[in-house]
């Protein structure tokens, strides 16, 4: 009973710390949702109205017809006619175009009389994320057009692929990025909060006072994270709200299961922050360690934007050490695949193990009370 009273007192003290600094509190609750809204609305791999240039050496009916088709498609916007291929370099360096179509001389003549003509597509190789899609859209438009010009009844054999896009019929890119940014933001804000708040007590020398409180160290540390668990949960709720109502990511599975897993994930983040604070000797180092270990790694390795399967094997293993990798699987599973608890058992267990390891390890490391 006495323990509980002390515990309550400690939680109250932490709350007062948070509430006292309204600027930090606003940011604590506001930053995650703002980042999710910005990232979700700006992050897209969809190609729309990409600026292109055309070098038309043929200038005949067929080339004009095709150019017209390309420039009226939703993917491309014709901004420049160039006379020679050399001018493409200048445009690329100025950044005015993203791709160029080069039509051969006598394009139409060759097409009709020799049965074979050529169009060259040139894209900017320094844009690895978008150039391959530009090329493939260009090819699709040209091929479709040529196929439509050929007489249809031709003796041949056609294997027709019919495609079904599971979980995301319209290929909405946000289904991937919104859960991705959610896991990154929750992890970073959580870990930063606890790691800084404890190193601050270290810096000011109040940590020793805190550790001399006559209750179990596990409870002292737990009291330290309870307030942040609550604030993080509130901001997680706002993120899930935005995912559902602003970005229209469906919630196919159980919301309760998602919230439970979110609490688990927040605990992982906070415990990781605790652990970092045991290694850091100042708030600056705490922040440096947290940002180094978590910011770019979660963005690159945990499946936030890049599929993890395409990473080199070493990085795939490193990615498995990040809690966000597992939460990404869990949140996408529940949101998009309607996964039940059973199919996510493995991922959830890993998060539970991570919380335990981070938490116990950090409590043990806090043992020496006086240095």
């Amino acid at each position: 009973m006495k323990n509980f009273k002390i515990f309550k007192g400690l939680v109250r003290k932490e709350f007062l710390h948070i509430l006292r600094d309204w600027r930090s509190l606003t940011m604590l609750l506001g930053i995650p949702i703002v980042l999710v809204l910005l990232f979700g609305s700006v992050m897209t791999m969809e190609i729309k109205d990409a600026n292109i240039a055309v070098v038309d050496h043929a200038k005949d009916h067929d080339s004009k017809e095709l150019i017209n088709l390309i420039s009226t498609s939703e993917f491309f916007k014709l901004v420049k006619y160039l006379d020679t291929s050399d001018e493409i370099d200048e445009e690329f360096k100025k950044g005015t175009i993203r791709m160029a179509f080069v039509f051969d001389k006598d394009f139409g003549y060759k097409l009709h009389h020799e049965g074979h003509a050529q169009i060259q597509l040139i894209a900017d190789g320094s844009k690895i994320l978008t150039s391959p899609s530009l090329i493939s859209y260009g090819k699709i438009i040209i091929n479709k057009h040529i196929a439509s010009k050929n007489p249809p009844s031709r003796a041949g054999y056609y294997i027709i692929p019919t495609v079904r896009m599971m979980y995301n019929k319209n290929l909405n890119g946000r289904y991937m990025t919104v859960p991705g940014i959610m896991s990154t933001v929750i992890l970073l804000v959580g870990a930063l909060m606890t790691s800084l708040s404890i190193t601050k007590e270290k810096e000011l020398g109040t940590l020793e006072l805190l550790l001399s409180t006559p209750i179990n160290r596990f409870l002292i540390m737990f009291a330290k994270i309870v307030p942040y668990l609550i604030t993080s949960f509130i901001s997680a709720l706002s993120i899930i709200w935005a995912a559902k109502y602003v970005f229209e990511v469906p919630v196919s599975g159980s919301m309760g299961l998602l919230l439970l897993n979110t609490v688990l994930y927040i605990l992982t983040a906070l415990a990781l922050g605790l652990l970092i604070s045991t290694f850091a000797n100042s708030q600056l180092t705490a922040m440096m360690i947290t940002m180094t270990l978590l910011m770019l790694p979660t963005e690159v390795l945990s499946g936030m934007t890049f599929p993890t399967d395409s990473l080199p094997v070493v990085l795939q293993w490193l990615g498995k050490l990040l809690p966000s990798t597992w939460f990404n699987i869990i949140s996408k599973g529940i949101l998009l695949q309607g996964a039940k608890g059973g199919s996510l058992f493995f991922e959830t267990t890993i998060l539970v193990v991570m919380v335990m390891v981070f938490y116990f390890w950090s409590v043990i490391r806090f043992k020496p009370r006086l240095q």
Partner: protein
Amino acid sequence: MRIIRFIIVKEFIQIFRNPLLVLIILSQPFIQVLLLGTAGGDINYASVYVVDEDLSATSREIISKMEGSDFFDIRGAALTMDEAYKVMEYKNINLIVHFPPNFEKKLIKEHSSKVQLVTNAIDAITASLTYAYSSEIIGAVNKDVAIKWAAKSLSNKASTVSIPYSYWYNRALISQYIMVPAMCVAMVVMITILLSGMNIVKEKEIGTMEQLNVTPMRKTHFIMGKIIPVWIINIVLLAIGLILSSLVFHVPVVGSLWLVFFLSGVVMFLLLAVGVLISVISNTQQQAMFFTFFIIMIFVIFGDFITPIDNMPSWGKAMADLNPQAYYSRMIHLVITKGSGIKDILPDLLKVSGLTFATLAVSLWIFNKKD
């Protein structure tokens, strides 16, 4: 000048007194550039499950062609679609290829037959690439079949267009050539802002700021003394990062290396100005931490790093016009990948300098208002 030198020496002593901090700073190029640079960001892998209810020569040919490609990894086969759907849900495979019974018979008799592709579309980009590549393979098999069975009936040849394509500046589309310099940029942005912002606030929080205020030193001296060490540290980090990128990843530097350092030096002053602004608007390190985290995340989101600016809506592009990381990454790629000279990047350099003065002016204004 002498005063600034003293502060610089003091700063370096303070940093080197903390070996952990030195270790974290020096580990940056190895973690962010060496390790994360190997993540290409390109999509090169899709796991496949096969449901072959036909077991014919044609279906096997398609499967073996898929096995032969680098992109597809055939993980296994299921007898029924239900079973395969379950595998997709539990193990997150990318594609199910389903050959219905009598697939080949129908192809011979009716000259066309359907194969079903079920893609896991949570990640829309991987899904569309998976579909494009498998269609390509099926198209190739189509041609083989046509030649094998009906070479004669194809006498009336269709006209075709060949579409050769090329990626300029990075012909083989080697993602490391782009990703590694981008990682150098991300590292410099993160470390410059982190070190400068938190560092100044620390003096406020501990109260040593007041001691410095009573010394006969100007505020500009103080600020210069604070930011020049950070500038030097980041030039060193960038040098290590670039050495790693050429030794390990063989990233070719087409333009001038001096220009790379010159433009980096200019951009760093803008980043330092952002750090100063953060330190002016925060009273505690915790507040500075929030601002720093928020700003670094915003810079990354609008920085052409994982989110292509080209695809953004116009307001996103406008945000990117205020973003140091976007300028930095564009200029680095212009010089390193495309070999641009000072003339090409001059407009960007001028804008960066303009932003630097604007940021400093705003910080100064807020600073004076507070006193």
